[in-house]
């Protein structure tokens, strides 16, 4: 009998993501890596507030729902008390780069030994597509009706480059707009968790995701925009490699 769908056991039956949303791909990549590393059973997930919190239902491992932006603080305590466990946060760009920028910055500065998966789709998704610090210049959102104007809102925040000054164990930026980039992103995620397993310090992978709903594009158009426009501003690659 033909196998039509194989999915990691860490991923449950249903998700609540919109059609063409990038979170589903990223959730799956994280689950695959943890299962391949044999760490599904001891992994503790700290979820953010926003579309990322829909992972609470989907994820089949232990998890806690943190306060908006504060997942790195909660994960700090869990990892220090349970150093033998895999501990990771899963945060969107509204959560991590706006209200929670202090927490991610200081967790990086302390080089806490957990991992952050940073889903960047350039908007506050769940609240209806408002501008995030990561929104591109000129991008129309529900709070930048005529396009983001850097005169009033500044330039989009590049989190990975910002954190690189603090010399954590591992920092990379991937994307999910092509098979090739999905496979590369999975390697980055694996590197990040291996850095944690080897107690090297803090690791973070930023992943560029499409948000067709709030970008007002079809799923195909949204993926195309990630590859053509978003990646032009947010370059892909390993910004801090392990052992550097």
């Amino acid at each position: 009998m033909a196998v039509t769908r194989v999915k990691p056991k860490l991923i449950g039956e249903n998700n609540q993501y919109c059609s063409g949303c990038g979170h589903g791909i990223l959730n799956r990549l994280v689950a695959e890596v943890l299962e391949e590393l044999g760490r599904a059973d001891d992994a503790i997930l700290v979820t953010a507030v926003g579309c990322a919190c829909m992972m609470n239902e989907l994820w089949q491992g232990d998890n806690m729902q943190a306060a908006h932006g504060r997942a790195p603080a909660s994960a700090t305590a869990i990892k220090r008390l349970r150093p033998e466990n895999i501990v990771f946060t899963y945060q969107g760009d509204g959560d991590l780069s706006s209200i929670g920028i202090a927490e991610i910055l200081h967790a990086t500065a302390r080089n806490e030994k957990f991992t952050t998966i940073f889903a960047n789709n350039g908007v506050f998704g769940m609240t209806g597509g408002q501008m995030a610090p990561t929104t591109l210049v000129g991008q129309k959102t529900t709070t930048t009706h005529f396009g983001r104007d850097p005169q009033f809102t500044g330039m989009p925040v590049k989190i990975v480059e910002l954190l690189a000054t603090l010399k954590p164990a591992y920092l990379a930026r991937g994307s999910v707009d092509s098979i090739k980039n999905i496979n590369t992103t999975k390697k980055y995620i694996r590197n990040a968790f291996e850095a944690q397993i080897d107690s090297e310090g803090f690791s973070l992978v930023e992943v560029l995701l499409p948000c067709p709903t709030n970008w007002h594009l079809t799923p195909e158009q949204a993926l195309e925009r990630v590859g053509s426009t978003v990646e032009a501003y947010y370059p892909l690659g390993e910004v801090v490699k392990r052992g550097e």
Partner: protein
Amino acid sequence: MKGNEVVGEAAARAGCNMFCGYPITPSSETLEYVSARFPELGRQFVQAESELAAINMVFGAAAAGFRVMTASSGPGFDLKQEGISYIASCDLPCVIVDVCRYGSGLGAISPGQNDYLQATKGGGHGDYKVLVYAPNSVQEIADLMVLANDKADEYRMPVLILSDGALGQMMEPVTLPEFGPDDQVKNKPWALRGRGPDGERNQITTALYVDPDFANKLRKKYAEIEAKETRAESYLTDDAEVVLVSYGISSRIAKEAVNRAREKGIKLGLFRPISLWPFPKKELGEATANAKAVLSVEMSSLGQMVEDVALHLKGRLPIYLELSDMNVPQVANILKKVDGILNGSEQEVY
């Protein structure tokens, strides 16, 4: 020992596994003390980047099943309220110490009793309660720290110690509790530890997401606490015509006022709530059974506990207020007000 240092030492002896905090006067001595003492005992200590981070570290530690605490004051205590609401909503235990300082906004760093309402009525959003204990000596700080840790685990809820700048800064002799076990985490099957080979996951989230009967259970839990967990001290109240109601550092001056009044033949008594939530309403009723008036003595500019006193006396007695603003109350001022109550020249507030 200094009150703020006893907070840290007693917590360690009560089996607290982690302290996360941020410097703020007049509570910083606790942070400084535990920064050395907790690592010495193999416990975790993090100086957080902010009060927000500190309380959310507490949230994480509690979710992982460990005994954890923080301490703060004034504007720092404000910033913790969202986190306290989260922790309460997830039925998680933790201990928080508010070393209350006087004033709103930046306020002052001198002692105050103006966080009563914030502490007892829920400073954060939503429907929740925290157990609140108000020590009036360094010894009682030590005793209540142990009780607070135990009650937090028993009821799976945040417990607050409402101290103040005077209690925190003053030094008194203290008999410290014996070291208790520091592995209560083993008694918490609900804690995050990884789902394990059986694949049974634990999830820490707002209880209303996972329990359809959440609201009924909440009401039942709080009703049980109101019935079982009140604590109070009554001093010479049996025949008292006027009963002072006072907690924390103010209650010590109030007690002295009672002694002076008795020397002059004035029938004055003192009722001291030790648990502020649940408020000891039954005990207040008993202590004021024969009284003609009640005087709430508070170190604030508007009076806060007086609202609970009025609520629970239900109009049975006239209630007066003695406010000492940013200084501890004065015996002479209390006695003057008592004279005024007895000769009818004082205006009641309720």
